[in-house]
């Protein structure tokens, strides 16, 4: 399709999205991602709680 404006022409020329190679994660990747995120979040919450003990 022809670009409708100069801006679109340069956008297409500078940002050719079709060249991106971001792979689709599998079930193991998705499950693990959320488990690791939950563990990291839990550690952070623990430290916030611990700090709150010291505040007056």
């Amino acid at each position, binding site marked *: 399709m022809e670009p409708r404006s100069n801006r679109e022409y340069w956008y297409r*020329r500078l940002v*050719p999205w079709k060249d991106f*190679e971001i792979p689709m994660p599998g079930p193991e990747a998705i499950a*693990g*991602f959320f488990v690791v995120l939950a563990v990291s979040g839990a*550690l952070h919450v623990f430290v916030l709680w*611990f700090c709150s003990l*010291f505040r007056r």
Partner: protein
Amino acid sequence: MLELRWLDAVVLASYFVLMIGIGFVAARRVKNMDDYYLGGRRFGKAMMIMYAFGVGTHADSAVGLAAQTYKLGMAGIWYQWSQLFNTPFYWLLSPVFRRARCVTTADFYEMRYGSSVGILYSFWGVAINFGYLGVTLFGSARLIEALTSGRVPLLWSMVLMTSSFLLYSLIGGMIATVWNEFIQGILTLIMSFLLLPFLWYAVGGVAGFQAKIPNADALFRLVAPGEIGLFWIFVVSFNQVVGFGAQPHILSNNAAGRTELDNRVGFCAGVTLKRLCSIGWALAGVLAIAYYGKGAVQPDHVFGSLIRDLLPAGFAGLMIACIMASVMDNGAVFVLTTSALFTRNLLRTFRGGQNPRLELLVSRLFSIVYVCGSIALAQSFQDVPSAIRFIWALIPMIGIAFWLGLWWRRANRFGAWASFLAATSAWAIGLNVFGWTGDAGLPYLISFYLCAGIGAGVLVSLLTPPESQDRLDRFFLTINTPIGKEDKLHRFEEEARLAAGVS
């Protein structure tokens, strides 16, 4: 000063004999370069967890973090926690390193961009490892200096620490290193928490701390206005992601396991274990404010002084063994990855051809040069936090090309060079022209060099010819093909040969 009794000396001596003995046993299993650098890719989850934990955890982490929390309060914990919320992304990325089927990270860059970028990475990777070992040695030597009230000079403790790990890593390669990581990881865990019950008792717990410190509220906030704020945390975290894949040891951290799951679990659990230890180090630094008073001790000496003043004399041998352990496991990995870069990627390129016997010999000789250079670099550092900031800036310069190449087919070798040159120039300008130094200037410095590097990488890639279709197809097929499914790769090679008209 800590007194070394005969029992401490026996513990220390037994420990060193055990480490070196492991090196000799492991040496019998080293049959080729893959065994030497990646342990034959045969380690299970437990080994990989301790390996990742051991590589990521060293005495300078404890010393640097305790120094920062002693200065700034709990907000200093971000010196170690800046990667906390990056860890899930490492879970996603981990298989790439195994699937790449590379021995060094420079092989990875070469596969994606060609030999010029492979060589660029080899030089920079060696420089990064000089920095890493320098920082590690400096932090640990500072700790020993504090422990012994300055009676063991910095240089001597560095020389003592390096001789041992050099010996066992040179003999047994990665197999000896990972086996030792297991033992040393456990000792490092002990080091992280041994001090806390004594310190807690000495300070008088929460009530004692609050009685001694009038502004306890400010010290237990996770941000320190003007120093470590939300902008700092976000930018430093992003900086760590950019640099992640470009660290020379990360490839072996994620490729030495038996399966992809072993690598993923090993790496993420090891890194998370380190975050857990960080809580202990950070707390030690803050509680030290109540124990010593703010500014009464040189920040780099806080962790060591606490050990010296609080632990009973019988713990001296164990504590020094823990410190040695944390340096040695890192030193061994750095020695191996640096010598791999030097021999496989630089020597092989400039000399031409392969000669495994010569490469193994040169790799062992270069390790000695590397260790001496790192000790020299360590002498130039002023304090541990500034040394850590130095290494943070060093890695992402080449990490930008890693991400561009991994996600964007259009990225090419000219863009990779441009991103590196622009980022390093911007870093130098930020430091010397704009004066962005210390924690206050750090987020501006990082934003500046990352924007310059990414911008230059994208722009130059778009304005110059792309990499060949064949190279790109081969690269992306390789990193998307799990180990054990090589038939896909063989089919590709076959088709490429047919297309080229070779029977």
